[in-house]
């Protein structure tokens, strides 16, 4: 029996982000939300392990109370149940807070052998929650994994980490935590029956009252501004004349060796 937790975050769909040209502010009020793309890989990997080895998959998130829609989305991707750790104040948590809440929620009542996290979230991409959660729970941590196998006989996982200088093949006894890279799998699109079945799966509602205070943010966000890029945006036609003009313009700007 392999009991896996797949952590996921409900994030703003970055395709919906608009920039207010005057203030350089990001306009997010009409943006939709989705499961962070990396976390879809995490859920998929947990489900793939379950298909191979049996056991259970629980999808866990820390989210504001307005994010309840994330549960059906997550559950339609295959987990048996979900744990929704939520509070109205959970909208802009610092990584340290997310970790302490997640750790408290897991300790309070989710049995696990393996925790799978995405390499980072699609919005803030701090890449901290996975390793910091392992540290808080006091379990081995393997990051940046693009291949994961589980050995039932000795209850160990073997993982290939993709690092700057090559592949590092490592192994750890369970319980453990891994963070995975998106090329580890291709998440399947949920079928209609999976979508309709999601409502019937159990989702544990955990609130801040039962966990105690969220803890010190440690990191304070002073502001978020749109990244500006001032580019000339000059277009040339694809005919001979246009191409010659483009080459002329380029050579004026850049010294080509």
């Amino acid at each position, binding site marked *: 029996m392999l009991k896996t937790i797949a952590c996921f975050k409900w994030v703003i769909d970055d395709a919906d982000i608009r920039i207010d040209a005057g203030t350089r502010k990001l306009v997010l009020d009409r943006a939709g939300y*989705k499961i962070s793309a990396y976390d879809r890989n995490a859920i998929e990997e947990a489900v793939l392990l379950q298909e191979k080895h049996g056991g259970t998959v629980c999808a866990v998130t820390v989210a504001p109370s307005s994010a309840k*829609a994330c549960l*059906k*989305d997550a559950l*339609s991707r295959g987990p048996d149940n979900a744990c929704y750790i939520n509070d109205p104040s959970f909208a802009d948590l610092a990584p340290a807070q997310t970790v302490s809440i997640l750790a408290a929620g897991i300790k309070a009542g989710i049995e696990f052998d393996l925790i799978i996290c995405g390499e980072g979230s699609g919005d803030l991409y701090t890449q901290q929650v996975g390793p910091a959660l392992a540290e808080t729970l006091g379990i081995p941590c393997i990051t940046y994994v693009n291949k994961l196998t589980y050995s039932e006989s000795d209850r160990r996982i073997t993982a290939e980490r993709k690092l700057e200088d090559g592949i590092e093949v490592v192994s750890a006894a369970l319980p453990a935590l891994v963070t995975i890279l998106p090329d580890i799998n291709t998440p399947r*699109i*949920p*079928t*209609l*029956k999976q*979508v*309709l079945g*999601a*409502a019937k799966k159990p989702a544990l509602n955990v609130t801040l009252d039962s966990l105690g205070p969220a803890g010190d943010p440690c990191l304070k966000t002073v502001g978020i501004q749109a990244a500006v890029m001032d580019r000339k945006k000059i*277009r040339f036609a694809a005919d001979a004349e246009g191409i010659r003009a483009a080459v002329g313009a380029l050579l004026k700007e850049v010294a080509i060796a």
Partner: protein
Amino acid sequence: MDFNLTEEHKLIRANVREFCEKFVDPIAEQTDAEPKFPMETVKKLAEQDLLGIPYPTEYGGAGSDYLSYIIVIEELSRACATTGFTLEVHSSLASFPLFKFGTEEQKKKYLVPLCKGEMLGAFALTEPGAGTDAGAASTVAVKDGDHYVLNGSKIFISNAPVAGVIIAFALTDKSKGTKGLSAFIVPQGTPGLIIGKHLNKMGIRGSLTSEVLFKDCRVPAENLLGQENQGFKIAMMTLDGGRIGIAAQALGIAQAALDESIHYSKERVQFGKPIAALQAIQWMIANMATEIEASRFLTYKAAWNYDQGLPYSKEAAMAKLFASETAARQTNRAVQVHGGIGFIKGHKVERLYRDAKITEIYEGTSEVMRMVISGSVLR
């Protein structure tokens, strides 16, 4: 009153969008240009449980509602009108009459494989001499022992060349006009069932549409759908539901025209600024967006009536009339926004312009829709 889609509806839309980005968008141009029937896409739709959306799970369906089905057709059509229409013919025109009028035996034998996507369905009502005037049909079915013998020809039958089963209409009593029409389940391969000439269409070119001929085609008597002479009622009820599907197809086409126009008008620079900064373009875009929103509400309302068990014939006709005419107008505007480039083959708005037209014609022309609506409101 609640205008929000449920969480499930939103997820279904998001999933179908992803499906389209992955599997439909990349081949939409080829589907139209070659033209090529999107068989691979149909197989993938079956894997996603999308070939029997509103039918109960015991018949192989997904057990979802009509609004889900409508959203799926809208999104598929936004990427490729052929694909949306293929699903509509299959689910609305072929599966619905089986679900509504079929015996338990017939459902097990035909509805289940249709819903599971093991085969596609088609619907053969229109004849060369009997389009809107279905009672003028000349295809006849004569009882011969435990069989019916069908003779006659049908035209504009979509999915016919790839269908595993065709719901066909023929007169069992020639003297009674529409009251003498009956419906038959005709499996592909039945001796005397001949799939005729493939028709070269202006739009939805990837869809396979052909003549269907019956030459002493012997259909077992057990394949009579509903009662003898009940065919006209079956056809009309089927088309009522189908019209919501065509409204959704038109809606998807119109939405795609708007999407393309917004994108293009922000990028295209004339007189030193994007054309979206010109009021002439802004007004076109505003009209497009507004009419599309109105189409969507009419279409979803008709589907909602269906799901609530309320009458929906008038609502379906209104939705189809408005959405199809909206699609024709918006695709026209979209080509106008694009200018010359929109007139060139391979550009999406050129395809949308051609695809939109048929929605004003099939499953009841705009004129028939007005007859249905006026008949209802003047009653």
